[in-house]
């Protein structure tokens, strides 16, 4: 046994790390292509509902978001826990939706304007009153395509929920 164990020069050579940057770059590019920038900092809790018939929202550039829910834990001291509407990075009142929609529509090219979609990210526990009001405002702004964002679920989970 002792004869077999040779010490010194013939130990295993160190693993080459020359390809490590390549591997990491590959991962980097994967993440760069498959993810999108986080648009806003969420100030409301949005625990989304689930559905079985949801469709993927394809063209991100056509979508504008409206968030509705109670303020997050840390902000509740300041703002209470009544549901709030968040547009971009701030709490807004419903009357400001019109302005927001117009501004968002301006960002799109002429051809894309009719395709603009409003994506409503609404917390599960919100009551419909505020949502109906938001919908009326959207009709006033003539932003008629909307999407109730919901997670995908199987039929079984859907009924149990």
């Amino acid at each position: 046994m002792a004869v077999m164990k040779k010490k010194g020069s013939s130990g295993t050579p160190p693993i080459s790390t020359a390809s490590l940057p390549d591997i990491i770059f590959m991962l980097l590019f994967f993440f760069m292509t498959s993810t999108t920038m986080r648009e806003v900092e969420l100030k409301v809790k949005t625990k989304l509902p689930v559905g079985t018939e949801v469709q993927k929202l394809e063209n991100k550039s056509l979508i504008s978001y409206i968030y509705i829910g109670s303020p997050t834990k840390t902000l509740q001291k300041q703002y209470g826990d009544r549901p709030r509407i968040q547009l971009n990075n701030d709490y807004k009142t419903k009357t400001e939706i019109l302005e927001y929609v117009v501004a968002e529509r301006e960002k799109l090219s002429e051809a894309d304007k009719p395709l603009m979609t409003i994506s409503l990210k609404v917390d599960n526990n919100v009551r419909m009153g505020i949502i109906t009001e938001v919908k009326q405002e959207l009709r006033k702004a003539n932003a008629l395509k909307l999407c109730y964002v919901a997670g995908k679920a199987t039929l079984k989970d859907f009924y149990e929920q």
Partner: protein
Amino acid sequence: MAKRSTPEVNAGSMADIAFLLLIFYLVTTTMNVDSGIMRTLPPLAEQNQKQEDVKMNKRNLLFVSINSRDKILINLKDPVGIENLTERAKDFIMNPTNNSEMPEFEEVEINLLGKRRVSKAVISLQNTRFTSYSMYIKVQNELTRAYNELRDNLANKEFSKSFANLDEDQQDAIRKAIPLRISEAEPKI
């Protein structure tokens, strides 16, 4: 001049730089693609034409209302569980027994499918201010499922493929044969 060979650039820190970038992207981006239930709102009615929209044959209309305790009522009198809503809606849309209480049909010429009887059914969804959003989405989902299943059935019958696997024109034809008509009533204020 004496030739000097340029020393090789040390690439040892390349991995660190790449790691840094990678972590930056991991933190600042999100992976999820949103999905949701698509709806089109009706345009805001002009004051003078408000009345015309309401005039619609009663048999073509299915009222689905959700009250403030999240209970579903059909035609304001018939309570129904969420599990049965899809079946009720499908039954209503297709009117398989030609019931005179249920929607009428109109003959429509459709590309690829020829003349077809298309149901004039409209589902009208109503909710109160205190209906919860989760229930509302559930009902929306179930109504969408009714339409999707009917379209799938028709697609299977006509083209022996599921709706999702049809090409654009075929999907259009099916959509015309079973048009999605869910109206969200004007809120009562």
